């Protein structure tokens, strides 16, 4: 049994009052750490249970957040694919000076810290910044811009690697059939669709779960720029763990559904081959 409110025997841990039923002070006997862990696990399970209930009774606000999250991330992925796919293919296929340095830059971009991206986008979009005239700061457009900057190097880098792993003679065969550069890239992308889908999955995954940049650029404004990740952070900070868990579950579920769809497309191609 765990002893409650026995301050003399407490070693650490006071959890402030919150919306959970499991409120008050918990402490632990120095020689009974397992009891403490079990008590706190119950407290997390309680939050989880509430989160699931909230999930099944999605209210309008959560739905709006979900819609905005999906909209921003899918649109940003689409733009990143439009830029990254041809860019990666061209870098892989064309010979040009300092190609290795360009590839190293792309690879570096794949690990861009989102907060740094957020910082620079804020600087550029702020009233006095070079792109201030766009008035995109604290708008979904600005968030899309930040997410495009994060996802594009990932999709470019993975497309580049996929094209480079493609047999050079096959590409020569495409050119020998009389294809223009544009036609040959289209045929090539079709041939390496599995790797390209993996690049898209990675790009989408990197931005749907991203919080730093969207928080800085979007400002987490209720009803306007609040997305699942920023809302989760906010609710956690406010101590509303049940809502935070519900939002986290929605985020996980959404990410799973989108990736499941992409994986089904990818694996059906594998089956055909």
């Amino acid at each position, binding site marked *: 049994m765990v002893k409650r409110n026995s301050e003399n025997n407490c070693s650490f841990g006071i959890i402030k009052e919150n919306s959970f039923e499991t409120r008050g002070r918990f402490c632990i006997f120095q020689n009974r750490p397992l009891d403490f862990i079990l008590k706190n696990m119950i407290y997390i399970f309680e939050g989880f249970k509430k989160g699931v209930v909230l999930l099944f009774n999605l209210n309008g606000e959560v739905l709006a957040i979900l819609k905005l999250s999906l909209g921003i991330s899918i649109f940003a992925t689409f733009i990143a694919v439009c830029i990254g796919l041809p860019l990666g293919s061209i870098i892989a296929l064309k010979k040009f000076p300092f190609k290795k340095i360009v590839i190293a830059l792309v690879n570096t971009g794949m690990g861009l810290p989102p907060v740094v991206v957020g910082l620079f986008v804020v600087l550029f979009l702020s009233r006095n910044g070079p792109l201030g005239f766009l008035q995109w700061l604290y708008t979904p457009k600005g968030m899309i811009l930040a997410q495009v900057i994060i996802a594009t190097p990932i999709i470019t880098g993975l497309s580049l690697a996929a094209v480079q792993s493609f047999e050079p003679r096959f590409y020569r065969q495409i050119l020998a059939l009389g294809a223009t550069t544009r*036609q040959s890239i289209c045929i090539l992308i079709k041939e390496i669709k599995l790797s390209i889908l993996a690049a898209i999955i990675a790009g989408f995954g990197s931005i749907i779960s991203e919080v730093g940049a969207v928080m800085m650029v979007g400002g987490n404004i209720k009803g306007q720029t609040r997305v699942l990740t920023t809302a989760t952070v906010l609710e956690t900070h406010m101590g509303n763990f049940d809502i935070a868990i519900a939002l986290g579950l929605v985020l996980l579920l959404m990410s799973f559904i989108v990736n499941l769809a992409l994986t089904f497309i990818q694996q059906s191609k594998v089956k055909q081959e």
Partner: protein
Amino acid sequence: MIKIKDLKLDFPGRLSLFIDKLAIGKGKVFTIIGPNGAGKSTFLNIIALFQEPDKGVIEIFGDNILNLRDKLIFRRKISFVFSRPYLFDETVYNNIALPLRLRGIRDFKAVDETLDLFRIGHLNANKAPTLSQGEMHRVALARAFVTKPELILLDEPFLSLDPIYKESLINDLRGVIKSNEITAIFVSQVQTEALTLADTIAVMKAGRILQQGNPQDIFTMPDSKEVADFIGVETVVEGTIVKKEDNLCFVKAKDGFLEVVSIYNEGDRVLVCIRPEDVVIARHIDPSSARNHFKAKIIDIKPWGLEFKLNLYCGFNLIASVTKQSVKNLDLKIEDEVFAIFKATAIHLIKR
């Protein structure tokens, strides 16, 4: 049709390709044979503008193609078939129609004609990945011919095919090339393929063309040891012409004396080349027109495809090929003494 002059490409430490002069006539099949790493495929890649040479002139269709600004126009006049078929994940029909689609041609009558020409009409709705290796090669060849190219480059297109399928495909290909008067540059390592298709054969080694001429000349009269080695002349012995009567030369080669019909003179140092299939093995000598009879000891007997190769010593090492039935009928065994017989005209001399 094709004129090449002073073509040079250096891959330091790997290959140095140099062709000083080469001409290929319209409608002719020019075949390049040579070992791996000879520069055959590199040569084709230069012609197809996939590889830029260090210098040289390649005149095709009246232009130096190395100065062309728009490679696409040139590439659309030629076709290139690689050793692997490289088909797309589409139906056979769509694979063959692709070069027409890429050119914006909407009339696909040529696709049906080409399907018939290569006898693959029954496969037109099949997906390319479901085809056998041989069928894939047929489709790749059909795809190369659908645009009726003026020049076709064939880079070992029969590499992984079984002999029977290969023979039928080569015969079909020869028919299509000859009936359409298409100029072809064909690269191969296999002599029988080269003999079947070529109007002219060039033997290439280490980036240089060692010898070129009609197939008969190349295979019967190699002009260097490297060419002799590559075309399957397995007996190459150093010798000296010690006497000449009319056009019959008496050659001392190690401990043997040979009679050879040759243009060379007394005192000339030569290489004696004898093809294994020109040597007849017998237990006894019967009177015949063959000028060379040697008592020979069998050093080794090895199976070689459907035949056997005999390694003999008759004053010099001699390789002979015999059928399985002959080995059985003559009861040939290692250490046996037999007679090796060949005609004076079957020997080719290379001046050293």
